């Protein structure tokens, strides 16, 4: 399974959960994760796959496989 960890306001997309799991067959790249969880891309500020930042191009096409951990962080705002 792929473990998705959600931070800050992004938790609202999964009813306040901090973690969810997705089947590798359903989520082959970061974009799939965002689509399945219905997360608005513009609200995502940072994504780590196994602790490594994804390509910052915002194409979200970085691939993921079984046992990967994907961290999704909201935009970091000032204040």
């Amino acid at each position, binding site marked *: 399974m792929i473990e998705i960890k959600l*931070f*800050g*306001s992004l*938790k*609202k997309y999964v009813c306040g959960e*901090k973690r969810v799991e997705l089947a590798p067959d359903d989520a082959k790249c970061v974009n799939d994760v965002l689509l399945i969880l219905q997360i*608005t*891309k*513009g*609200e995502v*500020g*940072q994504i*780590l796959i196994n*602790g*490594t*930042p994804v390509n*910052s*191009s*915002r194409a979200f096409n970085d691939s993921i496989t079984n046992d990967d951990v994907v*961290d999704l*962080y*909201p*935009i*970091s*705002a*000032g*204040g």
Partner: protein
Amino acid sequence: MNVTHGPHGYLNRILRVNLTEQTIKVEELDKGFIRKYLGGRSLALYYLLKETKPNIDPFSEANLLIFATGALTGNAGPAIPRYTVVTKSPLTGGLGASEAGGFWGPELKFAGYDALIIEGVAKRPVYIWIKDDSVEIKDAENVWGLGSCEAQEKIKDEVGDKRARVAIIGPGGEKLVRFANIGNELGHYNGRNGLGAVMGSKNLKAIAVRGSKKLKAFDEPKLKEIAKEFAKTFKENNLGYTLFEYGTTATVEALTGFGALPTNNWETGVFEGAENLFADVYNEKLLTGRKGCYACPVRCKRVVTVKDEKYKVNSKYGGPEYETIGAMGPNMGIDDLNIIAKANELANHYGLDTISLGMTISFATKCFEEGLISVEDTGGLELKFGDGDALLAAIELIAKREGFGDIMAEGSHIMAKRLGKGTEKYTITVKGQEAPMHDPRTKVGVGLAYATTDIGTDHMVAPHDGFLTDAESWSFKNAEKLGVTDPSGLFDLTETKVKNFAILNRYYRMFDTIGCCCFGFAPRGPMEVDTFLEMINAITGWETDFDELLKAGERSLVLSRIYNYREGFTAADDNLPQIFYKDMTDGPYKGKLAIDKDKFRELIRSFYENLNWDKDTGYPKKEALESLGLGEFA
């Protein structure tokens, strides 16, 4: 629609109080002045430039302390409660300016004034009591030396009006701590630049105000409709939802993802105990309520209770927001929200800016741990990262200027100069002001803000880079309406980055003049820019557009630049602390993200050019002044 004549939303009236002469005067502003300057920071700068001489001592009688609302302040719309306090800063020696929300600015307008200019120095402690047209300078002996909460309550009792709004300094301001602030209603602060110390130097404890007049908006039904719709829908927007649910505290999590949570005086951005400070933990452990500012439904301010007896707080002071959590938490190696809440309460009781306070203590702690100062210097205080009791003890010493607190009360920049021994390398300041809790290596636009802002490091001068990275995002689409054309990556050192920053820097400066809170409006807040413009026009009747408004923002940037150069600043002061020219030391970007110094210098030159300032000197060209109608300041 309201068809009355005269200004709508503002008054064109200024109150002037001279504390030396004990005189009170009301002056009318020229018609057109507010439309040109919008009020707030620009109005105040106009008078600071006109009426103070260069190179005065900030604590001298010659310095002015100016409170100025914006054209929108106090009208019945969301997120428009703000006012500015402007003076010469004792922390930086340049422009001192800081905005606050809350209730005081609206109340000043209900009393019939757009601004209040304080001149001179009172012989004995006083406070000012403004009730509509009646203005009195009253004896403050009874409240001098008291913490903000107690003093505020006593003043309200004394003037016999519980609903009076009070702008106040704590004992820190009285003791001239160079980063003392001015608060209102115990939860809203003109936080930065040591404005409270200037107020203290004038022997002015507080300004209580109560007004009975109603502001006249140009189109009341329209304003009502906008306000009603906003109150109903703002939580559907993610930014609105987050502010209501978490205040600004979710920033801890967002920055953790970058390994950019300033830790142990910025030694690293990776903090082991970060999870203990996450927004959900905060809500569970501390949060007991939410509060906000005048007429704003967002209610992004926190009310907290600490269960641990040792760190019990007075809930009236509100709870820590992100900058305070950052500065007193990870930056001090502390992962206990109870201690951070206590540090926040003490800072508010004594009236101290939490960013400069945390950063000065973390600097001292770093010097201590490096052996550059010892218990002999500190009078026995063992400063250690992670030691909450040492942090709280240091706050007490600073507020009272006792022992080692006396040198810490100067702020880290002056302190390092006095200490010598190479301690300067552990300061993280621009123009003498300590950095807020955002690492510009992970958002380069914030670096441009830190370097170029005239009050020293400031994180609130443009929306942070994350709002402009994605062309499809709601924030970016709103920014497009302001003239932004292309997205820019977080770490980009490009012309697009400069262009976007320059547009939004004007936009945010417009907020600071017209009286807006940046949390209310896109790209950072939930109200779309089109609706925002409709609201401005419904209040003022100006039929203005963003061209005119951004130009007014630019006018303000120019005025503060003129002021700072008059006080001796140059382009060399538009720089970043050395640490940001080095790679991150840990986390997902370990060994990466150093800002290229030469490229960054080029970006600053482009920023000057974008504003039609000389690209070498950073000073506004004559044409720039003329095109903005500022020829008189040439």
